[in-house]
């Protein structure tokens, strides 16, 4: 039955940027289920800032398609969650409104950029949340906080109303404590939307099954290579042994395109960001510019003042990569490299049903521990390939290292989100027994 409730649980992790004190809900598949929404997903009447001061005070006049679907299914939208500014980061420390902390250890980062959504779920504030994943931004915080996160196949969930950062890579997806709850949310948000030109007519109506006998699981050597913490690798190998015990076949393989996947990813996402973020000039949304100055002077000053360092860096990297003299060296090469990643996945997924490995190379690090941008970028190495190829990928908790959660990542063929969910579900059911 439709109704309202108060949402006033203490937020010790700075997971929320905006909360509704009295929340309405309807009837339906998610009737009364509290759901938190990442702050780059538009919500009519609720502030939406992308974790940025440049959108401070912005209240969208419309709902993102996924929010419309959640409301139609009866879900209660309890508020907007903290994030790295415009989704640029791996820790949720890059928010203009302060970092989110990790419920598993408040001295550590929750991962990013959907760190607020992951902390809200892991901290028990909500049973489910929406995030967005451009290079791992759902799977990374899911792994660091010890919950489940799914990046659906590109195009399977409408991005209408998602404030764009890198359109060709990003995808909205669910986070929850269990695979079943992630699957339940996915069933509501997936499907065709004419307002997203990349939308695919592939609804998701699936009940997770733990029957995975005969499933062939490819394990690329590169997923356990340089930079991957030995203990994290060990936990993931234990998880693969559990899947093998359940009747899956483990197939060692290699993925040579991993050598340049990360560089291709960062050139692509910064290039797209430089174009997408050009619209933030203080004229149409966000705080007003000083109109006494000329257009570009006012524009430059506002963007210098209101964008954080990481956003400025990525816009400038993209501007540089797309400039006349460097386009061939960076952007064009990145697109060739991206195709090589896609081809690698296609080749591997002809022989195996899914690919598995760690989600993140390490467990969550301490707040402030990584201040060098490049070292932060390098930690995305295992998650970005799925975004470059547009294939579905899930992160499922697979034990702990020194008390901190580690994540098992399962990557599948295009539009086989159901299969990655099943493999994750089979593992989860077995270890919970």
């Amino acid at each position, binding site marked *: 039955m439709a109704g309202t409730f108060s949402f006033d649980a203490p937020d010790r992790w700075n997971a929320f940027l905006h909360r509704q004190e009295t929340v309405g809900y309807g009837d339906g598949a998610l009737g009364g289920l509290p759901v938190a929404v990442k702050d780059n997903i538009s919500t009519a009447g609720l502030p939406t800032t992308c974790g940025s001061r440049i959108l401070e005070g912005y209240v969208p006049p*419309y709902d993102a398609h996924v929010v419309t679907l959640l409301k139609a299914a009866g879900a209660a939208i309890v508020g907007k969650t903290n994030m790295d500014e415009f989704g640029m980061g791996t820790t949720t420390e890059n928010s203009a409104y302060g970092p989110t902390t990790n419920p598993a250890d408040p001295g550590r980062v929750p991962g990013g950029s959907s760190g607020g959504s992951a902390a809200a779920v892991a901290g028990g504030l909500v049973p489910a949340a929406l995030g967005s994943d451009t290079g791992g931004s759902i799977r990374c915080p899911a792994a660091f906080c010890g919950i489940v996160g799914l990046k659906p196949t590109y195009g399977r969930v409408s991005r209408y109303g998602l404030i764009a950062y890198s359109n060709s890579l990003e995808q909205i997806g669910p986070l929850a404590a269990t695979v079943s709850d992630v699957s339940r949310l996915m069933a509501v948000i997936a499907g065709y939307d004419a307002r997203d030109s990349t939308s695919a007519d592939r609804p998701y109506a699936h009940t997770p099954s733990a029957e995975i006998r005969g499933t062939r699981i490819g394990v690329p050597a590169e997923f356990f290579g340089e930079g991957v913490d030995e203990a994290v690798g060990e936990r993931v190998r234990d998880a693969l042994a559990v899947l093998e015990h359940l009747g899956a076949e483990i197939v060692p393989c290699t993925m040579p395109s991993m*050598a*340049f996947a990360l560089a*291709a990813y*960062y*050139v692509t996402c910064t290039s797209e960001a430089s174009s997408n973020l050009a619209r933030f000039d203080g004229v149409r*949304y966000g705080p007003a510019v000083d109109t006494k100055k000329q257009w570009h002077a006012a524009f*430059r000053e506002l963007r210098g003042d209101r964008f954080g360092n990481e956003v400025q860096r990525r816009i*400038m990297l993209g501007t540089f990569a797309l400039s006349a003299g460097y386009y061939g060296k960076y952007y064009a*090469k990145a697109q060739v490299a991206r195709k090589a990643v896609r081809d690698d996945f296609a080749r591997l997924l002809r022989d195996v049903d899914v690919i598995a490995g760690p989600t993140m190379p390490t467990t969550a690090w301490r707040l402030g521990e990584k201040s060098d941008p490049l070292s932060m970028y390098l930690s995305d190495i295992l998650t970005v390939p799925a975004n470059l190829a547009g294939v579905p990928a899930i992160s499922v908790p697979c034990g702990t290292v020194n008390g901190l959660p580690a994540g098992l990542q399962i990557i599948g063929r295009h539009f086989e989100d159901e299969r990655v969910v099943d493999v994750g579900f089979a593992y989860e059911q077995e270890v919970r027994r």
Partner: protein
Amino acid sequence: MVSETEINDIANLADISIPKEELGTFTAQFNSILEYFDLLDAVEAAPSEGAGRYNIFREDIVEPSLDQDAVLSNPGASEDEFIKGPRVM
């Protein structure tokens, strides 16, 4: 390697003002990232233009959109039912 002057030029192109005191750190970090991007030098061929692409434009049909009050609810300044921007000249 790009110099601080070039960083300033890129910042101007991107409409971002970088404070002088941050320029050195910014340039150093920018260069270390560009050095990493050099991995792409190992990638050989360029993609063939337009291969496998086709037009997916839909018919241009007028559909209901946001009303004017909703559109003007966010801009910092408006005048005569238009969004007011800074002067250009």
